[in-house]
């Protein structure tokens, strides 16, 4: 077993590739996730998010490249390091005959660490003892997801890999989950969160990577990503203007003599505002794009 590189980031991949027969699931995926950050891993279904997480855990093997987790190469580091990891699978299934409590005990036992955070998580996510005493087969999808979150985080992992963590949760529980993630960050844990729910990534993540067809198309701060995206400019006029005279500033979405909507690069905003000042301007709105718009722009 190779020793851990303590200065290395908790997750580092270089040139990861994976094929399933003729299907390319991952292509040359390189990522660094820093200690203590909440990292969002975005992408549509089939983009390779789950494959990446399963490679990071050593559940499947990459065809090419290297993955290092907690400073150790996944392929040759033995298994002890997984005790520091909390994992929530995207396709969550439990043993239907076991009760929730038996499930948590079993999985904590396998982790080999005390389940110090269990009670707190159960209270915050709203899983009472009466529910835990029931077989999992009687649980709703939301209850199973809560149980999944508890099993992933109950042993206070230093790295949490959460695949679609809010799937099936109602808004109140989602809110509780976001608070739990922020607490994990305060405690110094690293959270790697895969999702296609953009508002949640926008809300809790420090950085985000966008994945498309197995390739990372963008990595950066959530804020930087937004800044890099175009702004929506909405201008209303008191008198008729020629919208075509504004066309060279950006892409016209709505063009009428008294109302113009257009997408404009951030760098072109000052020049556009100066030009609009020369026109009979009645109202001006410059909107920052939501992460969702940024996301969609990448996938157009």
């Amino acid at each position: 077993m190779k020793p851990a590189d303590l200065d290395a980031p908790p997750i580092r991949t270089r040139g990861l590739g994976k094929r399933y027969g003729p299907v390319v699931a991952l292509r040359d995926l390189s990522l660094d996730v820093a200690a203590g950050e909440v990292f969002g891993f975005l992408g549509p279904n089939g983009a390779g998010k789950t494959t990446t997480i399963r490679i990071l855990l050593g559940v499947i093997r990459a065809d090419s490249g290297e993955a290092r987790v907690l400073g150790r190469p996944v392929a040759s580091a033995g298994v002890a390091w997984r005790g520091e990891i909390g994992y929530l699978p995207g396709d969550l299934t439990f043993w239907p005959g076991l009760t929730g409590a038996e499930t948590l005990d079993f999985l904590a036992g396998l982790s080999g660490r005390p389940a110090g955070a269990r009670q707190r998580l159960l209270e915050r996510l709203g899983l009472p003892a009466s529910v835990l005493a029931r077989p999992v087969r009687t649980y709703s999808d939301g209850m199973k997801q809560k149980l999944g979150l508890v099993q992933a985080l109950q042993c206070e992992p230093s790295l949490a890999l959460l695949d679609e963590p809010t799937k099936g949760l109602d808004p109140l529980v989602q809110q509780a989950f976001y608070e739990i993630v922020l607490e994990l960050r305060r405690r110094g844990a690293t959270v790697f969160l895969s999702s296609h729910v953009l508002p949640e990534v926008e809300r809790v993540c420090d950085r985000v990577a966008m994945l498309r067809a197995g390739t990372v198309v963008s990595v950066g701060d959530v804020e930087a990503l937004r800044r890099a995206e175009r702004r929506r400019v909405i201008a209303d006029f008191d008198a008729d203007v020629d919208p075509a005279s504004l066309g060279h500033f950006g892409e016209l979405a709505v063009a009428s003599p008294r109302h113009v909507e257009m997408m404009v690069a951030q760098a072109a905003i000052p020049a556009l505002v100066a030009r609009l000042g020369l026109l009979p301007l009645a109202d001006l709105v410059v909107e920052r794009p939501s992460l969702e718009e940024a996301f969609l722009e990448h996938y157009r």
Partner: protein
Amino acid sequence: MSVGVLVRHHVRLHRAALLPLAAGLALFEWLMTFVAGEPAVSRFLSEALRAAPPQFLALLNQDLLVGVSAQGIVGVGYAHPFALLMMAVWAVRVPSGALAGEIGRGTMDLVAARPVGRGAQVAAALVVLLGGLLLLTIAAWLGTLVGLTMRPLAGVSAWRYLPVAATLCLVFACFGAIGILVSSLAREGGVAIAWLSGLLAGSYVLDYVARVWPRLAALRPASLFRYYEPQRLVTAGFRGGDVVVPVAVGAAALVLALAVFARRDL
């Protein structure tokens, strides 16, 4: 440590099946001692066996001369398809459920993402397989012991059936080890069950056909049931091959299972 946790987990998943299997086996072997001690039943069976074609006797794995004795009738209890079926259920269920079953159910990710080696998963399946088979074997033999203690039969001792029960356990442990190999290759518990059941049934049929059809006699060693002959064990005791072949085949299957499971994607 993880092996112990996994063993407890498998026991919890399979314990509901173990009790009826053990009770069924114990009751069946007890019943055979009762049948053997009942003159009318014994006489009827003797006549039926004498009248039966050799192909039918081969199915019961019986030598006619031994079969008509009380000792032979008790021995039938260890070769009867009911006893074999009880053992087969455990030898198929545990290996199939442990590896392929977890993958197919989707729970393998929860286990494999923890500090649990692939070898530990194979070892845990083996421990539960062997532990269950041992319990079933003890239950079967206790049925014989209790029956013969309650109703002693002249010249028949329960101790003579101990090697029979041990060999029965060994043969099914070997099938279970092959089951672990099959399970380490499959992606669904159902697929592993189908393959292993087919292998068991095929092995049984091969042994039977090779016994009744001399032209195929040379193929008999290819069946694991060749190494389990209750009547010979009662009358002549162990033969080296009874132990060596199942142990060697089982060990080879386990080594292969470890190699395959350690390298595959889950």
